[in-house]
């Protein structure tokens, strides 16, 4: 799971939070094991990926770490697209490895299986134990030993245009089937008469969002049978979900066949500035192109009316026009979505494991967990979920993640992702004449990859 949570969210929320609660310094969880005096000259490195962790939290980490241990914490930012390359080269290299690194929760099994991380089972209880998000803990566990733990979680829910839904005469759905029918209706009615308008914008290769239809129908991507991983795309329940997806792709979504899950919010907003053919602003045309999208919670910072703040163009959420809901399942519960988020672990080659452990103690402290929540990132420790707040975004995040799932913890799963097989498969759903045969074909392709390490 690449790129998951708050970007702009952090900047604003983080500052507010800093102002609201004066950062306490005497948390019980931070009982340091290494003395401060002899650490003065030491430096450890932490890799954070993307800009999800806001600056205020980074400052908190470096300051607190220095205060607790006397050593210096250096935070380096990596990018999601290049992370695997960086981890592959640097983690095995004792001289240049980051001491602690964040990595995508679905990348965790591959690297833990390869022996990249330090066994931190002994700290598990101290860092939160069973209060830590179980599915993420599983993603970092090999043969009962804990190597990586959750850093934060996020999840996906629906953003929609209230005005368009109303004009099309449909209301917020309570079951998945209702949703499927509603977005089809909107696309057919196309109330604003916009060319290529999507009732629900779902990219042809966007399997990370599309997989919810598989999960909601009781299907899955793979399962472990007699110690071997098997791809389950042609399982009857999975096929049910795939058929619904095919329907959406054919009748509700006009998204390009190769679109993935990048910035779908562009299509939900009214146009930024619409110019006519002479370059003059006009009100007739619009660049809005979809009534509904599915996106990680932080997308709400990019959705809204265009206004100007401090000379910059920003989006202001408008409750009259925009709304959120959690994708419903067919059993009254929310449909399972992909749990986005990251794990964090100590490099097996770290030269300062004691200091690295101190850093984990700070990250899993009540203080920092609450700060994560304040920044809109789901805290790893269930006890602090309240810190996310009570607005509609926090509610949707908590509700949708209650039923969230991860990708298969198979050793070869990262290989499947890296090879782009899921994108390829999803890209073929729309035009498939025989879904079952297509699914079977990809099962045969994926199963051997799953067990390869």
């Amino acid at each position, binding site marked *: 799971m690449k790129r998951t949570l708050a970007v702009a969210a952090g900047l604003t929320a983080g500052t507010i939070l800093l102002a609201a609660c004066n950062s306490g310094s005497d948390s019980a969880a931070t009982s340091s094991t290494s003395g401060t005096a002899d650490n003065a000259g030491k430096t450890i490195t932490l890799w954070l990926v993307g800009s999800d962790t806001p600056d205020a939290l980074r400052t908190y980490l470096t300051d607190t770490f220095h205060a607790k241990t006397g050593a210096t914490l250096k935070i380096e930012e990596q990018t999601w697209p290049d992370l695997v390359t960086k981890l*592959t080269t640097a983690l095995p290299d004792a001289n240049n490895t980051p001491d602690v690194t964040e990595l995508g929760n679905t990348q965790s099994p*591959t690297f833990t299986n390869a022996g990249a991380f330090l066994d931190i089972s002994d700290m598990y209880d101290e860092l939160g134990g069973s209060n830590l998000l179980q599915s993420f803990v599983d993603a970092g566990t090999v043969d009962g030993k804990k190597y990586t733990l959750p850093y934060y979680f996020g999840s996906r829910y629906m953003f929609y245009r209230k005005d368009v839904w109303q004009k099309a005469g449909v209301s917020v759905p309570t079951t998945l089937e209702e949703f499927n029918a509603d977005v089809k209706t909107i696309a057919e009615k196309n109330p604003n008469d916009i060319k290529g308008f999507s009732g629900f914008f779902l990219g042809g290769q966007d399997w990370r969002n599309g997989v919810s239809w598989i999960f909601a129908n009781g299907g899955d991507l793979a399962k472990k049978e007699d110690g071997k991983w098997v791809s389950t795309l042609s399982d009857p329940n999975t096929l049910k979900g795939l058929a619904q997806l095919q329907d959406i792709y054919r009748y509700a979504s006009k998204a390009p066949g190769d679109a993935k899950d990048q910035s779908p919010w562009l299509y939900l907003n009214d146009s930024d500035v619409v110019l006519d053919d002479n370059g003059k602003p006009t009100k007739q045309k619009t660049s809005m192109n979809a009534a509904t999208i599915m996106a990680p919670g932080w997308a709400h910072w990019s959705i809204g009316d265009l206004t100007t703040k401090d000379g910059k163009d920003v989006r202001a959420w408008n409750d009259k026009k925009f709304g959120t809901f959690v994708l419903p399942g067919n059993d009254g519960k929310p449909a399972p979505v992909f749990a986005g988020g990251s794990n964090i672990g100590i490099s*097996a080659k770290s030269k300062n494991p004691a200091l690295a452990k101190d850093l984990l103690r700070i990250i899993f402290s009540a203080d920092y967990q609450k700060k994560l929540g304040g920044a809109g990132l789901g805290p790893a420790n269930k006890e602090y979920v309240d810190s996310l707040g009570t607005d509609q975004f926090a509610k949707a995040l908590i509700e949708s993640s209650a039923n969230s799932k991860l990708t298969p913890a198979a050793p070869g799963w990262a290989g499947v992702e890296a*090879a782009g097989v899921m994108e390829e498969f999803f890209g073929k759903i729309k035009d498939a004449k025989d879904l079952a045969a297509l699914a079977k074909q990809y099962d045969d392709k994926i199963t051997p990859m799953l067990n390869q390490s």
Partner: protein
Amino acid sequence: MSTRRGSRLPLLLIAPSVVVLVAALGYPVAWQVRTSFQHFGLRQQFGQPPDWVGLDNYRALLRDPQLWTVVVRSIAFCIVCAFATVAIGGAIAVLMKRVAAVPRVILQVALLLAWAMPVVAAMTVWVWIVDWRRGILNWLLVKVGIDGAAGHNWLAEPASFFAVAAVIVVWMSVPFVALSVYAGLTQVPQEVLEAAELDGASGLQRLRFVVMPLIAPVLSIVLLLQIIWDLRVFTQIKLLQDAGGVVNETNLLGTYIYQLGTGRGDFGTASAVSIFMLVLTVVLSWYYVRSLMKEES
């Protein structure tokens, strides 16, 4: 060519080249050859001893239909791009020779600008030009009456993906070829052309029988370079794949090796493909390399 100085001197002169090549490439190439005979995955990268598997990687490779698809695709792409580049570049060079100074200089400056664009920057612009929604290409097509182009996604289908990639690669490589061939043309002696004109040779005849033989060495060396470079094209394809397109249906050898190695952590197979690709390049350019080596002796 002379041997006037002692026999030590030439060895001293090539010593820096040899040293820098061995220093930078010696270990990596040796590692690659060795790894191609091993089962070398992510676990081995993290310190577990690799198993020697002999020729297994190669054997598996040659039986892998995907590799052959990628190979055929790469060769086709390379040949199309290399010949198109040399043809267009050569034609532009001839054109530059024929037109007046002002259009010539304008054309030269345009070529230089295109040549000077850093690859990452150029790719960013191109991706935006072919963007399905806001790209100027679709806008233009709609303007000239092709309504179906609105919202058309050029990168989704492998065929149009490669058409876009070929246009970009040719766009990037033509300036080098055009300016090289033009420089070659300016060295064709004026008297020869004039003599031919007096003898009644038409423009095309002069081009065919006088100019072509004289610039043949330039054409063949730029063609060889284009073939070598276009067969290993990587950055352009990788960045286009990042922008859209189905990775497994658009892989060329470069991106295939990258995906196997870095993406899936299967360094043994990736190394075997690299060696295979080296052999393939040698085979493709064998005729030229041999004639070149004959000239050397």
